């Protein structure tokens, strides 16, 4: 069975674990660099990106996370996880993991009272996906090699760059497994082409 980690420093870890199990993968909580060993893929969940960054630094996880990504293991960032992946963050001189060639704008739909649900049409995934946006960011620029998979009101809210997948909304809070199935398929394909170690 595919083993997919969930960065478990803070945020919606349980929901992603449930979703992964429904898609037939094993979910592993990642709190230390050691937990990354033997994983086929990784999810960076929603939560507070500033808090997660703080804890990534405290537990010296930055280097191991970057190494994991550079091995071409698929990584899926949702909401705060998308912010962690982005190379550029509007209004900030620095980034976090910064390995996806995109610019993100934080809280770009407003504060919590503006958080919303809306149906989304996602390229390669399908129509009418229930998008749950909570103080959500959006992708304001994409570099070469990045494919926008979904737009909402003219803003990119989901994109893929090779083995990196990121979305501004929360598929894990819905019962719809299409987005997670798409990621699990990415992980399966990457595992199949990897030379056996």
């Amino acid at each position, binding site marked *: 069975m595919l083993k997919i980690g969930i960065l478990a420093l803070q945020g919606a870890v349980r929901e992603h674990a449930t979703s992964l199990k429904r898609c037939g993968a094993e979910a592993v909580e990642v709190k230390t660099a050691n937990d990354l060993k033997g994983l086929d893929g990784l999810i960076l969940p929603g939560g*507070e990106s500033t808090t997660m960054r703080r804890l990534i630094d405290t537990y010296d996880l930055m280097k191991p996370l970057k190494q994991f990504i550079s091995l071409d293991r698929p990584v899926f960032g949702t909401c705060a996880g998308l912010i962690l992946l982005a190379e550029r963050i509007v209004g900030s001189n620095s980034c976090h993991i910064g390995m996806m060639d995109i610019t993100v704008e934080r809280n770009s739909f407003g504060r919590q009272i503006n958080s919303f649900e809306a149906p989304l049409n996602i390229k390669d995934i399908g129509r009418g996906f229930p998008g749950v946006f909570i103080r959500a960011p959006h992708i304001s620029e994409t570099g070469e090699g990045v494919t926008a998979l979904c737009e909402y009101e003219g803003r990119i809210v989901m994109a893929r760059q090779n083995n990196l997948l990121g979305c501004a909304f929360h598929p894990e809070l819905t019962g719809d497994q299409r987005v997670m199935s798409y990621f699990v398929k990415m992980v399966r394909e990457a595992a199949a082409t990897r030379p056996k170690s």
Partner: protein
Amino acid sequence: MGDSKVGTVVVKRGMAEMQKGGVIMDVVNAEQAKIAEAAGAVAVMALERVPSDIRKAGGVARMADPTIIEEVMKAVSIPVMAKARIGHITEARILEAMGVDYIDESEVLTPADEEFHLLKSSYTVPFVCGCRDLGEAARRIGEGAAMLRTKGEPGTGNIVEAVRHMRKVNAQVRRVIHMSEDELMTEAKLLGAPYEVLLEIKKLGRLPVVNFAAGGVATPADAALMMELGADGVFVGSGIFKSENPALFAKAIVEATTNFRDYKLLAEISKGLGTPMTGLEIASLAPADRMQERGW
């Protein structure tokens, strides 16, 4: 677009789900809010006074001056919560109009209504409410609360009441989960809980909303203890900015909450933190000073 919906149950409860495993800190100005954010808080609660100072000041405690809340909202990018008095429809609407991210209908303030809580489902902004047992928890969920916290005994720096409330709620949740469905209506009657909420608990195998610990957390070990007892996260009121070194203390409480079972790490981060806030023995409080009795 016409097909988007704000203030839905998913969006309100989901917001609290994103706070899980985190620490929400009471702050009274922009400077404290920045310290909290830098320490890794997942949100701040903007107040005029922290609970221990509310106790000292006495009199009627109300919603904070909007200037303070605005100042905090401008200072940080993490969510900002604020407190309204129990049943004070207008304070809650004012906070909503200001765009705060979460409202705490809180017993820390003097109640405005001694009979009715707010109908929280009628607001776009989500609410967190205190509870001491499953009856209270389920009634608040029934009214539309999207997040719960134990009441504990605020401003005392004494964890005993928060422990009591967390254990009570979780024991009652376990009981409901293991009951057969034909026993639930009587249980609802005994607890004073809406039947539908108990049914949802049984179906999910847990509370349908996040439940944080609050009311008495004074040290990193206290925060870790509450996580051990099943809290989804921790509110720290007076504990941080009444301690000797708030920045250090705040960071230590965040780390303790994430790694609540890493005892070697807990020992490390508990070293040299300086004096925590002075605690109060619960028995020394006059019944009228017990904030947890507020709410119905």
